[in-house]
């Protein structure tokens, strides 16, 4: 039993480790041993397989977020004073330019 425990924890990451690896694998190529461990775990664990594919889905969605739903404060606008300030600074830059 002791041996089996040691063997399992050596090659087979836990679900919490697998979820960390799944996240990290989106940002860099994992070392081969970790990649194998994640793959093995996901073959045996449906919930972690699901977790991994949900992360992939979110990654694809996030890449489109800016286009599909521009920053949330959709009604946030420059205040009039800020707008005037911007215009003033631009027009004084334009004068210097000439």
């Amino acid at each position, binding site marked *: 039993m002791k041996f089996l425990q040691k063997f399992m924890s050596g090659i087979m990451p836990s*679900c919490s480790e697998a979820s960390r690896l799944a996240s990290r694998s989106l940002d860099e190529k994992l070392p081969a041993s970790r990649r194998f461990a994640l793959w093995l775990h996901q073959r045996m664990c449906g919930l972690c397989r699901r977790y991994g594919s949900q992360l992939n*889905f979110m990654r694809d969605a*996030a890449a489109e977020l800016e286009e599909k*739903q521009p920053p*949330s404060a959709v009604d946030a606008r420059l205040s009039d004073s800020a707008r005037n*300030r911007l*215009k003033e600074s*631009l027009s004084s830059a334009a004068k210097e330019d000439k």
Partner: protein
Amino acid sequence: MNQDSQTDVKSEHVVDPEVWVDDHGDVLYRFALARLRNSATAEDLVQETLLAAFKAKDRFEGRASVRSWLVGILKNKIIDFFRKRSRETSFSDLEFMRGELGDRMKASALMGEHWIAEQGPREWASPEDSLSRAEFWGVLRSCADKLPDKIAGVFLMREVDGVASEEICEVFNISPNNFWVMLHRARLALRQCLELNWFQAQGMTGGGR
């Protein structure tokens, strides 16, 4: 010929920088606000962006739209801003979602920490279909808005703006390890938020297994 048409494009779009304020000011402001969470700083960076764009207007090639050119400049201004500030990673950033997995997992001798079936990720029914629903994007955006400031900054830069990991670590002055932790927690939180506020709310989740 080629030269002439380029000049045309330039003069057509880059005539009056003050028009930029009216045409693009709000868009730039919202872009900055979503990342900086501070209206005064967002305004300052929009101003810096427009001034920088004005000074560089001769280099605008008319290949991209004026707006995406301006957004590109703004992105760099935001990166510079974070780099200068590069505060210490605050306690709350790393505490965020810390116990999250612990609540959803239990330890066993053989498998280590593993999902408690009912607490694990639910099945999402045909998630690709959600991508064509306008409400989905609203929910995703509001989930991103709920992230703590710095975690949101890291996440948006990485996943939405596609900035390289090394550059984000440098800009925020965080170790690669903290970077992984912050992204991992951001994804945990977003996954959970989406599941609850979109898939479950729409009746689009399967069972625990």
